[in-house]
């Protein structure tokens, strides 16, 4: 997407009131905020704190022409491409992890020219969200210099007027929508994340519309009690969705581990059936389930509890 001038971004914000009002919505209503053609930034990274409940709802509703950006993309990117909602991804890496090999789906779509993959270095993408969050149209960096990556994307080299050094300018990324999953939020949208925060805070501050799903909706008092743990202030948030285990089968730090066996099954099916396996996955887990709770229930309670127990064990609880 083209870089927006600061004045335009600010005018958009100024048009929106930002009260600490009750923003609690059901996923179905919240996801209506996403429009065809939007650039949707997806919080978390790889298989950590992915806003899976929100993504599944969006996949259920269907959209066209979306672009999906994410620091490291996991198989949710494949669902959006094969599901026909998105025709491009902006990321630094796509796959699940070493044991699962290269993404056959992305290979097939990108090599065949049916989807675009705009590649930025991990830091460069982080700086793009950060520039967007800081309200400036670019940030300078020493990464990506000299590589062939810069030839494929919109960057500029300049000479630093203070030191004479060569720096690369990467453009701000202000997504139309940011979707993030957090540990706790009050109904106004003040949100806290435990552990590593990925790029969520910058993504949210940069975005034009923000939907937060949360493991727990808590009283405002719970937030003010440890206000230094708040990473998203309410006036950056448009909707709050209650989503216990809302990142599953991905992990949520301290709450539950990722379900690696689920990934195994998915990858085995793709190896066997190609893109059709992705459609079948969508059919089984999204379209034929009335909601995310039903999808979770399909794992069975003991498996879900096992994932929570593993997290507790790792946290030394």
């Amino acid at each position, binding site marked *: 997407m083209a870089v927006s001038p*600061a004045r335009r971004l600010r005018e958009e*914000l100024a048009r929106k009131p930002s009260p600490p009002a009750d923003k609690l919505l059901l996923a179905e209503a919240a996801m209506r905020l996403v429009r065809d053609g939007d650039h949707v930034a997806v919080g978390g990274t790889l298989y950590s704190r992915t806003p899976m409940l929100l993504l599944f709802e969006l996949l259920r509703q269907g959209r066209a022409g979306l672009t999906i950006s994410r620091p490291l993309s996991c198989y949710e990117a494949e669902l959006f491409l094969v599901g026909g909602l998105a025709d491009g991804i902006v990321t630094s890496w796509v796959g699940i992890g070493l044991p699962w090999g290269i993404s056959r789906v992305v290979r097939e779509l990108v090599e065949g020219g049916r989807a675009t993959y705009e590649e930025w270095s991990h830091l460069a993408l982080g700086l793009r969200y950060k520039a967007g*969050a800081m*309200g400036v149209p670019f940030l300078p960096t020493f990464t990506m210099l000299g590589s062939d990556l810069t030839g494929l994307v919109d960057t500029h080299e300049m000479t630093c007027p203070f030191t004479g050094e060569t720096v690369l300018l990467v453009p701000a990324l202000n997504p139309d929508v940011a979707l993030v999953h957090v540990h706790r939020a009050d109904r106004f949208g003040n949100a806290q994340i435990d552990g590593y925060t990925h790029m969520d805070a910058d993504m949210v501050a940069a975005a034009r519309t923000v939907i937060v799903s949360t493991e727990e909706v808590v009283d405002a008092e719970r*937030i003010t009690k440890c206000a230094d743990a708040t990473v998203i*202030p309410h006036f950056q948030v448009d909707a709050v969705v209650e989503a216990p285990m809302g990142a599953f089968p991905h992990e949520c730090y301290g709450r539950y581990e990722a379900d690696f066996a689920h990934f195994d099954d998915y990858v085995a099916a793709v190896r066997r059936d190609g893109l059709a396996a992705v459609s079948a996955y969508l059919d089984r887990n999204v379209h034929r389930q009335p909601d995310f709770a039903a999808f979770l229930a399909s794992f069975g309670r003991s498996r879900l509890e096992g994932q929570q127990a593993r997290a507790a064990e790792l946290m030394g609880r």
Partner: protein
Amino acid sequence: MTVSASRLLADHRVVFAGVGVPLLASVLAKQQHAPDLTIVLEGGIIGPRMLAGKLPISTNEMRAARHASMLTAITDVFLLAQRGFLDYGFLGAAQIDMHGNINTSFIGSVERPRVRLPGTGGANDIASLCNEVLVVTAHEPRRFVERVDFVTSPGHLDGGDARQKAGLVSRGPSTVVTDLALLDFDPDSRRMRLCALQPGVTVQDVRAQTGFELLAHPEVYQLEPPAISDLEILRELEAGAAVWD
């Protein structure tokens, strides 16, 4: 002055307040007509609730942070302003000129200042980055000067579209609230003009206390006096604030 300032704050908005009149005006607004106004303070503080009688003396102290919903770094708060999240910013003024430029740095020349003032603090940032800037100051000829000795905080610079041409991304000062009047800026020339009078004040009173030719709005009106409830709330808020209880 505090009451007039508070009435400029609309509900459902975010105000970047300094201590003193701005904070009092913001808390008053929340209690009177804008319960969902969010207060942000430069010390990394978002959404605090003040304790009556224990108002902070700076925006970087515990009293200012009470019951905040978010505590973070100073730079991050100003970056919220740069992104456009902060609707109102308040400024005081040692000097203010006909185009709303403010000086809090030097009286006299830069090389040999007659008075070295404390400096900008966050004032320049507020003037540059908050969506709308409200100036609150005592109305005296030595403050209301034709041209400030030094532009610490940019108003409309030389007037017209000078501010936009300088690259500034926000609209700048919309209103000046004083003990005598409420003033705004002519939409074309961006020169200060009289809008409304505090109760009991005449146009002549205002002109006498202004060190430059003041334009006037076609229809200058009278400001409503403070309500009894306004004064009660302010009295309660300030009680004991000056004593290190």
